[in-house]
């Protein structure tokens, strides 16, 4: 069957998609939790204040668990995560300065976090990967020229903090992926 075409997320998804704790993927107080953060920039180098990022890391089970977006059955409002389950899914909107951050567990089985980028002005979302280990190797990284490869490697700021900037266009444009 032919797929339904993509359309932009637009500017007004605010009440619908971001949710409290969307970037708190690691269970509360988990001793292995890491912070991953960065900025999203457009082709003129300006920060994008209305991008929406989704993160996916299947962890040991290779599959997601429900509970990223628990709803309060009384009010219909967000009840937050349960604080215990690692669901592997995160969603954050960029702030007015283009900055985002998440707290999660180090990826298991693969050396990267999977990302999906949405924004006003972007008619079809973009996939990329944030490789957290600067020495990571895999077939994708091996196939890229060094300059392009560098756009997928997060910078380690301290043992528990990684910086990953996303550039939608321009000389340092992030490598975006198409899955076949």
């Amino acid at each position: 069957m032919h797929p339904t075409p993509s359309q932009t997320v637009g500017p007004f998804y605010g009440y619908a998609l971001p949710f409290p704790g969307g970037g708190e993927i690691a269970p509360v107080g988990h001793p292995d939790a890491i912070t991953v953060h960065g900025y999203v920039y457009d082709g003129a180098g300006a920060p994008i204040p209305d991008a929406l990022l989704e993160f996916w890391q299947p962890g040991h089970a290779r599959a997601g668990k429900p509970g990223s977006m628990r709803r309060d059955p009384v009010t219909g409002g967000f009840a937050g995560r349960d604080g215990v389950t690692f669901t592997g899914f995160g969603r954050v909107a960029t702030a007015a300065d283009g900055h985002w951050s998440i707290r999660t567990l180090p990826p298991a089985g693969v050396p990267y976090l999977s990302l999906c980028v949405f924004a006003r002005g972007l008619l079809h979302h973009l996939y990329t990967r944030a490789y957290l280990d600067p020495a990571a190797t895999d077939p994708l990284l091996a196939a890229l020229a060094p300059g392009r490869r560098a756009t997928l490697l997060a910078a380690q700021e301290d043992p528990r903090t990684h910086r990953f900037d996303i550039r939608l266009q321009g000389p340092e444009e992030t490598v975006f992926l198409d899955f076949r």
Partner: protein
Amino acid sequence: MTLTQHDISREIARQATAHAATGEAAHHPARGYAPYRSSRLRHPGQPLVTVQDPEGAELSGPAFGLTDVTELDADLTRQHTGEPLGERITVTGRVLDRGGRPVRGQLVEIWQANASGRYAHQRDRHRAPLDPHFTGVGRCLTDAQGQYAFTTVRPGAYPWRNHHNAWRPAHIHFSLFGTAFTQRLVTQMYFPGDPLFPYDPILQSVTDPAARARLVATYDHDLSVPEWSLGYRWDIVLDGPTATWTEEGR
């Protein structure tokens, strides 16, 4: 110089002609589509890098469950103390993968303007009335047949600033998950027969007429509820790499 609808319509026509000349079907919009001005600095210039990675994390996906939705969420007309203004509608359809199989138990999220064409969002400066009884946000899980259903009001058309006198046709924004992260889809559903279709660079960014038609719901009288609501049907097919939809290994 002010950019007019005439200028944009001419660009739209040029893009449509260029697409027709390729003789190929294009299921999705190109990310760089000049008539939609916001796309100009927000699309990659390099081609996407193809990944053939059957073990990749992206071939699994997040799951959602009964804790992630409440009964209230699928009826956008009952989220406040009073009834919202506008024409009440029910929107339903099936979510399928490219193999035609239902996508079961997955999250469908929607958001939309109110009947006057205004979003309950601080940055929406359109001088149409806000409706204290309508936020315009809903969610549900698909059932065992892949079916979703919402009750809401028909959204109004609204102006935006792409060019002088730019108006968006009425639409509902949809966000969908499949069983793989690579099946993710954010899109917009349109209403049949809207006279604004040819003028809208966002809808026309889907340059293939058959693909564009797949964004338009069908009025279905059998779905209309007597003394209550008008019914629209809109089925959604999630894209994704071959590995997520062929019969191989299933």
